């Protein structure tokens, strides 16, 4: 892909990504926030493809936009609090100060990134980021974390059932 085309594709995904991510915070209704987040995950998957991370882009759509957000929407549906939750609450001073603090953190990080100077991306092998390459790495070098992840998921399943169920 030519440099110019890649840059155009980057901005095609990056600008809606930033807009939909901002929509998560701006939206007053949690359902709108969730739908905005789903859109953000799809655009982020596009950015991942641009970074030659095909497997992770696939998992992003499958796990995040598919599984996790469906879970969120189910919980929103279960916990409807009525219209009083949608009222505009007065911002406390601590919240405003926290938002400015977060903006300051981002500004510092952006300056640090700018100071790196433009760094060119090298060419990568054609199988970079494919299921075969990442899978081979997961089953050799990262075998122990991979197996620990399965244990973590088991603990999460049991924990979620124990916490959410009224009576075992």
């Amino acid at each position, binding site marked *: 892909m030519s440099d110019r085309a890649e840059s155009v594709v980057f901005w095609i995904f990056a600008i809606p990504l930033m807009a939909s*991510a901002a929509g998560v915070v701006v939206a007053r209704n949690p359902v709108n926030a969730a739908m905005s987040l789903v859109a953000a995950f799809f655009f982020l998957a596009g950015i991942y493809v641009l970074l030659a991370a095909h497997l*992770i882009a696939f998992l992003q759509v499958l796990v995040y936009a598919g599984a996790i957000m469906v879970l969120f929407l189910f919980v929103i549906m279960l*916990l409807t609090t009525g219209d009083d*939750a949608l009222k505009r609450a007065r911002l406390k001073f601590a919240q405003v100060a*926290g938002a400015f603090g977060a903006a300051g953190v981002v500004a510092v990080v952006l300056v640090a990134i700018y100071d790196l100077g433009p760094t060119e*991306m090298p060419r990568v092998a054609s199988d970079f*980021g494919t299921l075969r390459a990442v899978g081979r790495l997961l089953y050799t070098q990262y075998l122990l974390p991979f197996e620990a992840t399965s244990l973590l998921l088991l603990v999460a399943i049991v924990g979620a059932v124990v916490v959410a169920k009224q009576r075992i």
Partner: protein
Amino acid sequence: MVPVNYYLALAAFLFGIGLVGVVVKRNMLVVFMCIELMLNSANLTFLAFARRWGSLGGHAIAFFVIAVAAAEAAVGLAIVIAVFRTRGTLDVGDVTLLKS
């Protein structure tokens, strides 16, 4: 080629939005969504550096982050349901049992 700085700046922007959401929003569920956004920005940083250095280690870490996020969402949403059942609210400001 898009330089790696652009991806890093995008990730920093996403992280900042997530941080602002965690600080400002009152709804527990929206706070959770903002945490997911911050996890995703960390993933984007890992993948950008993996592409920069031509190493697949970042992809493996991103895989684990996605798995941990799934576990975290399941347990976290179960806690949200338990809190809503016992206290009848989703507002993070109203859950102050440890404060007294």
